[in-house]
């Protein structure tokens, strides 16, 4: 499912990273973040993504200077490769947005909970409130590949009339493409991660948004609500503690930043699901 870039491209990225290292040498008083330079609504070089804004706030709260190392999170080895090539290489100390309980980084306490969502035109009035809603049986469903939505659709054989999207593997793609496909009628309903599209949805009032509840109805545990955290490098407990302190002390401000950027917060389903 993943497009493999050539070895040459990998080398090219490595060289670029090397350059970035020189651009942001480690310095006391720096809040060093690795981020994608071109992946809205998460982050971009212009600082327009919600992860940028959270990073800026945390740096401010710590009284530190925000320093970025830019690297593609949608490269051939995906987010894991990004972590290996940046955080693990000490090019930065923090990444801003990972699922709590990720095991290749050291996550902070969660600073927000959100959910996968159903998106469809309000005018259609579909009766959809879970993956088990009968209405889904007759609709063309868009989903992001390798997400819980894909698993849920497979279990129910709804995948047979579903359309894959792959914005997380295609560095030129955008999570917005699914919303556009709803607009053109290519799909009737989309299932995607709310924070990936919340910013765009703010400007699309014609679309209805319904959270996808966690399910057990098929026997398999299906998790669609996730706690999200910042993360330090494995073993860097000092930075992790620093992040935890900011999250505990500034929950209101962090929540406000997320809300202003269209990230809809869902009820914490509790850490029990992790």
């Amino acid at each position, binding site marked *: 499912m993943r497009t493999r870039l050539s070895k040459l491209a990998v080398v090219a990225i490595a060289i670029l990273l090397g350059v970035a290292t020189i651009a942001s040498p480690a310095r006391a008083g720096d809040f060093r973040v690795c981020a994608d330079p071109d992946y809205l609504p998460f982050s971009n070089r212009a600082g327009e993504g919600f992860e940028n804004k959270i990073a800026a706030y945390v740096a401010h709260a710590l009284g530190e200077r925000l320093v970025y190392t830019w690297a593609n*999170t949608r490269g051939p080895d995906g987010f894991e490769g990004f972590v290996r090539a940046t955080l693990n290489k000490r090019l930065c100390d923090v990444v801003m947005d990972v*699922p709590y*309980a990720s095991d290749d980084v050291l996550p902070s306490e969660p600073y927000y909970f959100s959910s996968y969502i159903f998106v469809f035109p309000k005018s259609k009035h579909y009766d959809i409130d879970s993956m088990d809603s009968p209405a889904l049986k007759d609709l063309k469903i868009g989903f992001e590949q390798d997400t819980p939505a894909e698993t849920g659709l497979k279990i129910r054989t709804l995948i047979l009339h579903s359309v894959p999207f792959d914005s997380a593997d295609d560095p030129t793609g955008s999570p917005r493409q699914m919303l556009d496909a709803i607009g053109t009628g290519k799909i009737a309903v989309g299932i995607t991660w709310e924070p990936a599209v919340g910013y765009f949805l703010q400007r699309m009032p014609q679309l209805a948004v319904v959270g996808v509840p966690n399910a057990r109805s098929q026997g398999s545990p299906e998790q669609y609500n996730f706690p999200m955290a910042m993360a330090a490098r494995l073993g860097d407990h000092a930075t992790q503690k620093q992040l935890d302190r900011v999250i505990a002390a500034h929950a209101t401000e962090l929540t406000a930043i997320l809300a202003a950027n269209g990230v809809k917060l869902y009820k914490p389903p509790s850490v029990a699901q992790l």
Partner: protein
Amino acid sequence: MKRSITVGGVALIAVLLGIAGVWRPGTAQAPATLAEMAKDPNQWVIPGLNYSSTRNSTLNQITTDNVKNLSAAWTMSTGATRGHEGQPLVVGDTMYYESAFPNHVFAVNLDDYSTKWEFTPKEDPFAPTVACCDLVNRGVAYGDGKIIVDALDGVVYALNSSNGQVVWHTKTANPEAGQTVTSAPLVVKNKVLVGVSGGEFGVRGYITAYSLSAGKQVWRAYSEGPDSDVLIPANFNGPKNAGVSTWQGDQWRVGGGTTWGWYSYDPELNLIYYGSGNPGTWNPSQRPGDNKWSMTIFARDADTGEAKWAYQMTPHDAWDFDGINEMILADLTIGGNKVPALVHFDRNGFGYTLDRRNGKLLVAQKFDPDVNWATGVNMQTGRPEVVASKETKAGVNVHNICPAAMGSKDQQPASYDPVTGYFIVPTNHNCMDYQAFTVKYKSGFPFVGATVKMYAGPGGNRGAVIAWDATDGHIVWTDKERFPAWGGVLTTAGGVAFYGTMDGWFKAVDTKTGNLLWKFHTTSGIIANPMTYMHNGKQYVAILCGVGGWAGINLAAGLTNPTAGLGAVNAAMDLGHYTQLGGDLLVFSLPQSS
């Protein structure tokens, strides 16, 4: 019903019936207590028929000889099409029952089948979105002129049984916190016991006793936490504060152990019995420890809620084997001694017989021989002897675990027939492949890599109804079923056992042999529990049908390898080939001539 004093009473009534031939409920004295009322076989006043949850009626008009003539007597739509898992009550000349969500409650006049009153709660619209496994309901309770109704959204209503007016209501669960209620309440003396569902959403399970008169909370006992929360007294025979110490950190706060099954009561010991569900986190690797008191049979003082004893069946659950199935109280002769026993058929595939006075484990044997996650239960420690290769954990794919997560039996209640001494048990027969839990991140998109693939167990049948001897733990007979036997069982003094199937057959079999005596194809598949009552001298058998929207179909769909489902068999079509959604009450009796 298994207590000697009660058996005497039943025998007396049986004699009266034998002599009179026809029982006239109108001529009976109004019994003083629910326990007394439950001795009158014409009525069905407790969800499990009696406090012992035997679902064994002394009515004997319908027999192994004449059941072949059984015919539909009257029917009624429930107005709901989600899964119907409960059973009607009959109190005097009125039948009361609750449909699946939206939880319509009906009072039906048994003389002319007119609706005396109807009640539908106005529910929190958020509730259905956090209900785990279809929007089922397992029935109403009766006590002191009130019908007690649990609504999915966690509100408990006490209705005036004569007019349906709300006498009191109280909120026992909060859907916003993932809590819902699907179980049937139990009225014990002047209290109502209510459980909670939502183990999938990190709910810390609890059971609450409310006053029957006003709905005021009398006590609440949690399944996890410090002993003060679990209501474990200082003189408890077991580890102290295990509801905290067997968890890592504060995980007990979201420890699961919900209480969505059935409740039983022993009036002589004044103890209530019930089981707690799975521990709160899906990934066992992330919650080291025994995770007490999930997966536990609790015996609690009915007045104070204090735990008398507790027995954890599946420490550190790695398979989702909730321990909530019914507790059947029966006096059995084991090793020459008469024992006040508790018999429980757990999701984990073991049939347990315990001394209900003290929780001493007497028998623990597989009630499906294909169970393979454990070789047996250590009778000294009570712990299962787990097969290491069948234990699910992060990073490991485990194949061919039997039973599957839905268990060798779920909440569908068994019945105890004291004549044969058999427990007639509706069972599931599925195995599963369990793919490892790992939290992953695809740039921008979180997910948990965990899938359970379920498929029919050895032999290809997905369920069976069995007869079980709980004195030594062996299977007497087995009736295989195409689908999981997801409905309960009724046994009667006529020697007949009744049960329904998901593919829509309502069946009568010989309790002694399991031989099929009669069957009837119903409007929709059955996942509910048969009951029987007598009205104007005629014995009736009633069943709710309604395989439950997606739920029933899910059960079938989940049985096929989901990847195979991509192109091969569409298992969702499988159950649909046999039945359709619906929601009906069907009532049967013998025609006049027989």
